[in-house]
């Protein structure tokens, strides 16, 4: 089996338009959640989100590109450009043929859907722009990344709701590990902060109107975010030979299905995914110093996740740190695991553990060290990233410090 390392990372999300500014915000425990600035916001009951503000696509894309790229594709390309520039890779010949892109997204081109449903249903128009389908399709972002960077190997899109990014990165990891690919561009993206996207979530009555407070006894629901994060996963020997800077090593991945309920999480399903990632990584539980939690801020997720962690780690659960950065960037749905992997990599490279902000009051059902409110400086060697999706589909990644 080949070893898999990360040699590039890029992002745009509510905390910042690149990795440096996102890490700085996480270090300072800054909140990117604010009043939504979208059309018809007055008709929404939930008026907050982790929205990317001061965004001007025209500085990054030309007119033809903008007419073809939904916002979720734009976020992906911005992130991919940063990640591939950092990795210092160019894809030609054999390398191009053995490199691909696997991304996670849940909604795909929701902005395009929303705008065009308005035009045909609300405004009664009978003609739509010719690019509606190529803009809204879930794989548009992956395809545009492959075109911009000449990635000709295995490429596709994974849609498993809130676990999409972790499932995508797990596939990328296993493709390199098995020898199927040399380099995989991977991560996830979401742009669901439009009227229909927020309204749909409102209907389920699990959203908070006033903030995301994971693990706090005062939590009252999730808050949506938007953005993308993209990584370059590379076969270790390939990276070493070209002298690339290695940010971290991906060492394990596991996925499970609860096979029980379409929205309620299961402790057993989550625990099996966490334990599975440890087994896959051949990592003793005591080695794990930090877990980036799924930590949505709903009553159900946070207590089930803490119980699953306690089950898998036993007494070590009290020694490890577990934080939810969703408190800062919101829940990016299909893109969330990717943005959260930035916090995992920051823990390994910078020795900084991103906090769970907005933490007000302990909940006895979430009695773990959730790194409340302030980032912590701790050298860590191994971390996990949890993602537990609606539909009971769970995906957990294990990473180690680069050696």
């Amino acid at each position, binding site marked *: 089996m080949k070893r898999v390392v990360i040699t590039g990372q890029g992002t745009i999300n509510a905390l910042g338009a690149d990795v440096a500014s996102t890490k700085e915000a996480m270090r300072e425990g800054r909140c990117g959640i604010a009043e939504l600035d979208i059309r018809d916001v007055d008709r929404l009951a939930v008026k907050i989100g982790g929205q990317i503000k001061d965004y001007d696509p025209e500085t990054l894309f030309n007119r033809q590109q903008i007419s073809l790229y939904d916002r979720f594709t734009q976020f992906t390309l911005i992130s991919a450009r940063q990640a591939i520039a950092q990795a210092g890779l160019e894809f030609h010949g054999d390398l191009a043929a053995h490199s691909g892109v696997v991304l996670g997204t849940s909604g795909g081109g929701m902005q395009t859907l929303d705008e065009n449903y308005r035009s045909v249903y609300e405004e009664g128009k009978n003609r739509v722009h010719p690019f509606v389908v190529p803009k809204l399709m879930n794989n548009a972002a992956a395809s545009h990344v492959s075109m911009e960077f000449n990635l000709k190997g295995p490429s596709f899109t994974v849609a498993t709701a809130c676990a999409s990014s972790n499932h995508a990165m797990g596939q990328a990891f296993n493709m390199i590990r098995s020898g199927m690919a040399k380099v995989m561009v991977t991560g996830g993206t979401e742009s669901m902060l439009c009227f229909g996207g927020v309204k749909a979530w409102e209907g*389920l009555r699990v959203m908070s109107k006033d903030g995301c407070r994971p693990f706090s006894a005062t939590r*009252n629901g999730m808050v949506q975010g938007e953005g993308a994060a993209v990584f370059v996963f590379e076969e270790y020997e390939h990276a070493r030979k070209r002298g690339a800077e290695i940010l971290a090593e991906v060492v394990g991945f596991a996925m499970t299905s609860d096979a029980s309920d379409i929205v309620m999480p299961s402790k057993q399903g989550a625990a099996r995914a966490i334990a599975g990632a440890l087994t896959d990584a051949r990592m003793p539980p005591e080695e794990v110093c930090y877990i980036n939690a799924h930590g949505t801020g709903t009553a159900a997720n946070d207590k089930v996740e803490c119980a699953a962690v306690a089950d898998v780690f036993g007494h070590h659960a009290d020694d490890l740190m577990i934080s939810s950065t969703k408190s800062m960037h919101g829940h990016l749905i299909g893109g969330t695991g990717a943005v959260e992997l930035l916090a995992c990599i920051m823990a390994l490279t910078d020795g900084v553990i991103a906090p769970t902000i907005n933490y007000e009051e302990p909940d006895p059902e979430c009695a773990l060290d959730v790194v409340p409110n302030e980032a912590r400086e701790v050298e860590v060697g191994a971390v996990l990233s949890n993602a537990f999706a609606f539909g009971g589909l769970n995906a957990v990644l294990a990473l180690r410090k680069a050696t």
Partner: protein
Amino acid sequence: MADVAQKVREIIAEQAVLDVEDVKPDATLDDLGIDSLGLVESIFAIEEAFDIQVPFNANEPEASDFDISNVAAIIKAVEGLVASKT
């Protein structure tokens, strides 16, 4: 208000797959076999039927003024919301 009570019982009965007569005032949602998804669906149906907004967040059901402890409580809460509408 008798018709409000009747309509609420019909909505709950449909969700519970029971006859309306079997939806007793003292029955809890648990008794009727209505889970969390069934509850949010019932609330949606109530909002649609009476054109009201029910203040309910599944994360903190007890924090809301909308009492869901049993069928009678739900009827009373809906009657209150309907009354304050006019």
